[in-house]
């Protein structure tokens, strides 16, 4: 217990980084996922194939590989740099890798949402002369989103937990690294582990609860 109190400020600072990463990546991966799914169902075969290929490859790659590659491959070898400050650069590399990874799952989830929209909706949209993008934007996607709020919530929760893998991209600031660092000093400490787990639960449980509530409130009545 003493260890937990002694290292609490470091652990809290680390956990705050997880929260920060989660917020940025949630926004980016939801946007990128929506764009991807739009391409995935587009009338242009080339765009459809390109989006499907991206989704299938990224979904089947371990996140650890994606993150390690963005640091060692993209940044160190190929010279991609977001900032001169190494830790800022590493932060954005994690954001890049984690968002690119999560976006493919968001896109797949949204696609299963599109599959729940009845055929008549798309036909009606076309019948009143809406173009593909108009029907996607005004008819299909709003209903698709409302159908998959709960699964999207699960994807976001998994993404929040995945922020702990950031150290694979050489970003040594978030709580999993701080915990490891502390264990190197003090040896294993059960209170520290439990404290961190509770901190993560304090975020993931409300997200899950909120997603469930929204899913019920916004469900499309058919």
């Amino acid at each position: 217990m003493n260890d937990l109190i002694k290292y609490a400020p470091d652990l809290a600072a680390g956990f705050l980084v997880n929260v920060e990463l989660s917020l940025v990546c949630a926004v980016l991966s939801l946007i990128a996922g929506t764009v991807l799914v739009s391409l995935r169902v587009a009338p242009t075969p080339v765009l459809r194939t390109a989006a499907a290929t991206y989704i299938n490859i990224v979904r089947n790659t371990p996140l650890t590989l994606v993150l390690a590659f963005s640091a060692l491959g993209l940044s160190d070898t190929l010279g991609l740099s977001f900032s001169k400050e190494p830790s800022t650069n590493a932060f954005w590399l994690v954001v890049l890798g984690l968002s690119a990874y999560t976006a493919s799952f968001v896109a797949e989830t949204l696609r299963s949402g599109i599959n729940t929209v009845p055929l008549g909706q798309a036909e009606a949209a076309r019948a009143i002369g809406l173009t593909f993008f108009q029907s996607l934007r005004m008819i299909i996607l709003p209903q698709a989103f409302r159908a998959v709020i709960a699964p999207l919530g699960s994807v976001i929760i998994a993404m929040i937990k995945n922020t702990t893998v950031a150290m694979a991209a050489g970003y040594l600031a978030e709580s999993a690294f701080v915990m490891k660092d502390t264990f190197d000093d003090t040896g294993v400490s059960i209170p520290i582990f439990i404290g961190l787990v509770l901190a993560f639960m304090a975020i993931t449980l409300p997200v899950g609860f909120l997603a469930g509530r929204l899913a019920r409130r916004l469900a499309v009545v058919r």
Partner: protein
Amino acid sequence: MSGPVDTSVLFDAPGPRARLRNNALSLLALIAIVAVVYFVYLKFDEKGQWEGRIWEPFAEPSTWTEYIIPGLLGTLKAAGLGAVFALVFGSVFGLARLSDHRWIRVPAGAVVEIFRAIPLLLLIFFLAYLAPAVFGSGDYTLIALVAGLTLYNGSVLAEVVRAGVLAVPKGQSEAAYSIGFRKNQVMRMVLLPQAVTAMMPAIVSQLVVLLKDTALGYIIAYVDLLNYGFKIIPAVFFGSLIPAAIVIGVIYVGLNMTLSALATWLEKRSRRSRRTSVKPIPAAADIGE
């Protein structure tokens, strides 16, 4: 009501103008894709990533026998052990959650819910530091990795098992009870055989997640495919990080796609199956790490 939207009804069968527009868009998209590929090519070229020197090792059989295959075996060992233990853990806790006894049901539910909520990497770190403190010094990376994978994926599988058994129509167990089966006979001879068929696709999907998760071993320095690809090979053949990353990436994606294809095939088969009255259960919404 009509069926779900298939992508082809989101837009009209293209007429002459739409065809023209589609072709123009296809061309633009192709140009954009080619431009991106060319840009990557240029960047690679600028940093000397096309030099034969760094790609040559992967044409040598010795690179494969000494580095890549041992790495793959490390990954498969962790995944195989994790899968077996997770399936056992999942079956035990999934069925325990369905128990009629409160004192079994409630603790089993708590264990499953807690391990599902813990970020897997935190759990693996904790186990990796806990093991030496309890059992004395030694190499516990494999044990920590397998134990972490088992506890996490086993908890997800427990939910799949529970959902599978609950999805069997009530009439099945009522009929079994009415012809005089005992509780465990109903489970063993009526519910489980039908539930397993319906669970298979979801189980295999979760095994894909488990296989991906073995890559976390890289962070605790377990010697797996990722470790060989990103640490050992670039250290031995200087500068060949990108080629190694591409080779092991292809291996990971190939393995996972094969497993995913198996899951899809099983789902189709179980949808057609007359041996079960249960529809396939959806895979857990789990994205792996």
